[in-house]
């Protein structure tokens, strides 16, 4: 797991998992798996933009692009 995967995973776990939930993997489906609702993507997007000093256009911030830690990292790399 690289630094970015680690950072994103940690954020997602802290932000979205309840205390008794199981841990996430980098390929765990987040939105289609019901862990992150598409609504809560707002704060995730904001976190990524602040952390990596990037701007992700709304049309790129699709539920598919945010559906796993791996997908998110790929998306972020497009804009770094």
């Amino acid at each position, binding site marked *: 797991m690289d630094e970015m995967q680690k950072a994103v995973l940690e954020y997602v776990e802290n932000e*979205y998992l*309840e205390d008794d939930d199981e841990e996430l993997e980098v390929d765990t489906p987040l939105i289609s*798996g*019901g862990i992150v*609702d598409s*609504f*809560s993507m*707002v*704060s995730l997007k904001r976190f990524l933009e602040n952390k990596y000093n990037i701007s992700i256009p709304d049309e790129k911030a699709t539920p598919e692009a945010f559906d796993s830690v791996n997908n998110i990292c790929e998306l972020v790399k497009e804009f770094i």
Partner: protein
Amino acid sequence: MSFSKSIRELYQQEIKEIQGQGIFKEERFIHAPQAADIEVEFPTGASLKKVINMCSNNYLGLSSHPDVIKAAHEGLDHRGYGMSSVRFICGTQDIHRELENKMTEFLGTEDTVLFPSCMDANAGVFEAILNENDVMISDRLVHASIIDGIRLCKAQHDTYKHSNMSHLEQKLELHADKRLKVIITDGVFSMDGDTAKMDEIVALAEKHDALVFVDDSHSSGFIGKTGRGTHEQYNVLGKIDIITTTFGKALGGASGGCVSGRKEIVELCRQKARPYLFSNTMAPVIVSGVIRVLDILSQSTERRDKLEENANYWRKGLTDAGFVLKEGDTPIVPVMLFNAKLSQDFSKDLYQEGIYAIGFFFPVVPKGQARIRTQISAGHEKHHLDKALEAFIKVGKKYDILGKTKKEIIDVYGM
């Protein structure tokens, strides 16, 4: 005709997908007034079956109360059937304002405006009072109608973990730069039956200079000592800036809703909320019925007291029998089964035993948290609850889940 074969097939495919996911909803026809004892036609065409209703929002048993029906008849006789107009043209009667005043007094707020439904109140209120300089911070389990209202509003949106006050505070700090911050929550969460920590929410709002919005649809009429709602239970009467609630549940159960709270906010709803501006409001017959409901509730707390007693009795019975319940102290008592198919099978078996209670599963509740949601009413008598309990135990034994923990049930049936 533009509804071509291919368009029809497109829609048929979507319906098939819904069926394939096991989330296709079928209506059950009730051939009786809403009450604890009802006669149901299900599936369509089947002969009528007498069942005990354990899943209505008729918390106070007022939906078919003779006094309410009488008041509705009088409303029909004296104020007619329909208004054929929106409120601000020629669709407001004296009784509409009378009901608004009575709700203001009942909820202990500054002013109230009626809406065709609470869904409409929630859909309209945020857009009317917030703009892009503001932020809405909502509990992650708020009702779908609030989510729709949030979507229609230009203000930014963020969420906090369900009833997690430290997470809420983090979000209030994160959005400290906004013109207005509104904390948005349900009073009683309809799927879990727990209450929002209104006292802590109000304290955080005061500390961080935020407004508080609560949807008390599953509270108004019975939560709190005199049934005013969660703000009464948590001793923060007069401190909630915006309350929305419905007349479609405990308060007569017909339809209609309202926004109640700070008078300037209510006034802005009258001026700007689209469901108020572009739809007829509640029909006179319903307004008359709700006025009578509020009179009944203001005279005595007998019905909410009986409801509390019934709910405690039911919760204790299920707990003693060995079911896993969601913790809470409201008349919403979810019996946890975790697995979606098990919740459906359990519901079907209950129906065969004469008990009408529905299984809920993803996406209505999170994956792995399927349940039978039971809802208790002041219209239930002990014999209803005893018969329902007997049926739950019989079906619980069949699936061997009594006395089993969450983990043991999931080990057998899966998430």
